[in-house]
């Protein structure tokens, strides 16, 4: 076949972006069903880029087991790691829902805090029945999410500004209603829905699993979820495909409020009380888990299953290191280093496996 000259290659506007990689040879259309497949090495690398974190997780667990078999290798350790992170799971899912549609919500922890403050104040201090107290508490977080949505989506104000302001404001409101003290509530019914034992784990652990699976299902298998992913990937493409982009963005903020409120509910139900000044310390671990989750399962994309893996990966590491005798500071060091190293590694592996 003679070599064809390649012309009309470069548009006037965005020259550098449009350089083509075509070989310029008019290849015959591939025959039906016959497509070049990835080689075995390619598959291995794909698997490596998808599940590397799980491998590291296993190695890490083995290491801890070899160092401190008596403490690490017990069922108590297992339930401590997997039964203690429900609040973080809910909060991370809350952050994930906005990140998927290309938004950013810094107020998820504060929305969780307002719920976790309002419920004990209403039920414990004012003696309200626990059910309406919970509804009002979660409702407050949903309302905050709607206010975020109004400012960001309708008025088109920077999401950083709005959610940062909302986070600070809600922290202050929570301190006001709680009188800046630790508020608590004792409600056996509420405790039961969170820490009741199901298959050896607290029931809220299963809530977290169910929530992650539900979000994963919605994102992958429903028109709504696919629309969300496209809005996040390229809002203009989504708009030109007939997706109501503004509605999707609005909904994401409100959903983030709802999930943050549920995180607050789980928190109160598990612990029985809350110190409103601590709420923002939950923010960075949740965001770290969501971003670390982009290194697993669906590399490069925000995905709930990856977020779950990330949460328990981080918890395992911290728990093991604490068993080895490191003090509390290790938590922040491990979260920070783990996040950057794991995401960077996953990206490098992914880029390598793409290079042709």
């Amino acid at each position: 076949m003679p070599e064809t000259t390649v012309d009309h290659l470069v548009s006037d506007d965005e020259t550098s972006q449009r350089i083509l990689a075509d070989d310029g040879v008019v290849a015959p259309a591939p025959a039906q069903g016959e497509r070049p497949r990835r080689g075995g090495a390619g598959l291995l690398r794909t698997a490596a880029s998808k599940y590397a974190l799980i491998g590291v997780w296993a190695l890490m667990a083995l290491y801890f087991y070899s160092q401190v078999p008596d403490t690490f290798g017990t069922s108590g350790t297992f339930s401590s790691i997997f039964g203690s992170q429900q609040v973080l799971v809910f909060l991370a899912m809350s952050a994930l829902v906005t990140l998927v549609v290309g938004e950013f919500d810094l107020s998820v922890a504060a929305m969780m805090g307002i719920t976790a403050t309002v419920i004990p104040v209403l039920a414990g201090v004012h003696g309200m029945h626990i059910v309406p107290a919970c509804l009002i508490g979660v409702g407050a977080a949903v309302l905050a999410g709607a206010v975020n949505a109004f400012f960001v989506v309708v008025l088109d104000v920077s999401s950083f500004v709005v959610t940062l302001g909302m986070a600070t404001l809600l922290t202050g409101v929570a301190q006001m209603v709680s009188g800046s003290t630790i508020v608590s509530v004792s409600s056996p019914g509420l405790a039961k829905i969170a820490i009741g034992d199901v298959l050896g784990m607290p029931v809220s652990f299963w809530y977290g699993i169910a929530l992650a699976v539900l979000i994963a299902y919605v994102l992958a298998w429903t028109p709504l979820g696919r629309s969300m992913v496209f809005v996040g990937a390229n809002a203009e493409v989504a708009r030109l495909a007939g997706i109501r982009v503004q509605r999707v963005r609005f909904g994401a903020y409100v959903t983030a409020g709802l999930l943050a409120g549920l995180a607050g509910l789980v928190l109160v139900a598990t612990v029985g009380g809350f110190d409103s000044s601590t709420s923002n310390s939950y923010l960075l671990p949740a965001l770290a888990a969501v971003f670390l989750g982009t290194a697993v399962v669906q590399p490069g994309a925000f995905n709930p299953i990856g977020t779950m893996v990330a949460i328990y990966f981080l918890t395992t590491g911290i728990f093991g290191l604490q068993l080895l005798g490191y003090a509390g500071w290790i938590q922040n060091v491990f979260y920070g280093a783990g996040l950057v190293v794991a995401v960077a590694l996953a990206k490098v592996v992914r880029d390598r496996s793409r290079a042709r």
Partner: protein
Amino acid sequence: MTSTPRLEARGASKTFGPSTVLEDAHLVVQPGEIHSLVGQNGSGKSTLVKILTGYHAPDSGMTLEVDGRPLALPVQWRAAQAAGVSVVHQDMGLLDHLTVSENVGIGGFARKRLTGRIDWRRQDEVAAGILERLEIPVHPRTLVADLAPAHRAGVAIARALRGTVPGEGLMVLDEATRALPREDLARIHDLLRRVVDSGTAVLMVSHNLEEVLTTSQRVTVLRDGRVAGAGLPTDELTEADLARLMLGKTVDAVTRVPSVDPLPDGPAAEVADLEVDGRPVSITVRRGEVVGLTGLPGTGFEKVPYLLAGATRARTGTVTTPTGRVDLTRASVSETLRAGIALVPERRVRDGLAVDLSVRDNLALPSLRRRGSPWLVRRGWQAELTDDAVRRLGIKARSGDDLVKELSGGNQQKVLFAKWLSTDPDLLVLHEPTQAVDVGARADLLRAIGDAAAAGRGVLLVSTEPTDLVEICDRVLVLHPGLEPRELHTDDPDVLLEAVYNVPTTTGATHA
């Protein structure tokens, strides 16, 4: 004209990977002349300008001299500036919320010697001086946002000439005039003549052949990365000559035998009273017909696809298809989509495809609502759709799981086309479908457009590529702002180009 050229570039080549976009091009600009650089999209003229401004590094073998003094390559912009080269970009690079004085001064403010802070009074004087020299009646403290379009261009030119000594230097106008209304063009052309009368040279990149012939003394034509005409005096040229030089005969013709009598079962879409630039336009596309729509780059015809798809609100207009009738003043994209109108937008990376997602996801996007229930989007039809698209358009991808950004431009364009074809539209609206794709992909795409029409769809091809239009369209509508569309039946790209560039009203500017 003196014997030493103001700018002399020789042996300019540029390859990107396997493709050569500029090959051994040369450009000589004399002092005191307006020299035009013309060529179709992809001819390499932007690349050449970007080499001159230091944005691209040329391949080895190029030499560049300004006023006889060699300039080191790749061009360091500061050195070029010191040699007197200045540039006005197509968007003019003005900051609307700043004053004229600030816009003129950016990058080289007059400063106080002692403190180093900007000396606003002196800066205003400097700006006023240049504006006066160019006879632009604008006060330095006016906000640029408040200026008329012609004055905005004047301010951009004033900034470019800020540091130059009158009578020296070379100013590059990179399609800076294309957004200007016609009545303002004449004023800018007068301004440019004043600039070159002093001895400064102007290199003008333009799509408007009439502008090229009336304002510039000489013209260099690029075609497919090579010089097709070097420094030709414009007073010996007609627009048809220029068009022929630009076009050449290098592109493999795709032969679609235009259906002599389109399928007789009526219109695929009737567009009625669609307001484009203040004038209602009506277009009927019959089933099985490919209708072209073209005009001067940067004018109203380019808005038509977005108006038709409901992506931009129209002032007036309705569109009627066999599936439904849509009021374009209120329509949303999903409504026009349901009425059977699919838009394949220009700029695939920005508006067309989510490049970080897979081929299959992108292909399935417009059909999600139609083919998925609210609680489940099955994978089966998505895989079928992907296989079908890959086979029919010859998309070179390893599998539907490949990310769109891993594909070449031509294959991306095929994905974009297949994505919208899969919605089974009555009317397929295509905007610059062959922009920045190689010849092979172009042929595949044009063939697919023909197939879509043969299947009984109506196709509206909105494009500035004359060869595409004459090869694939049954008829072509040329739309000039404020005029009734002119219908052409031709196989000759020259005839089409002439109709596009020969605007019926004149600016009143005299032939140089």
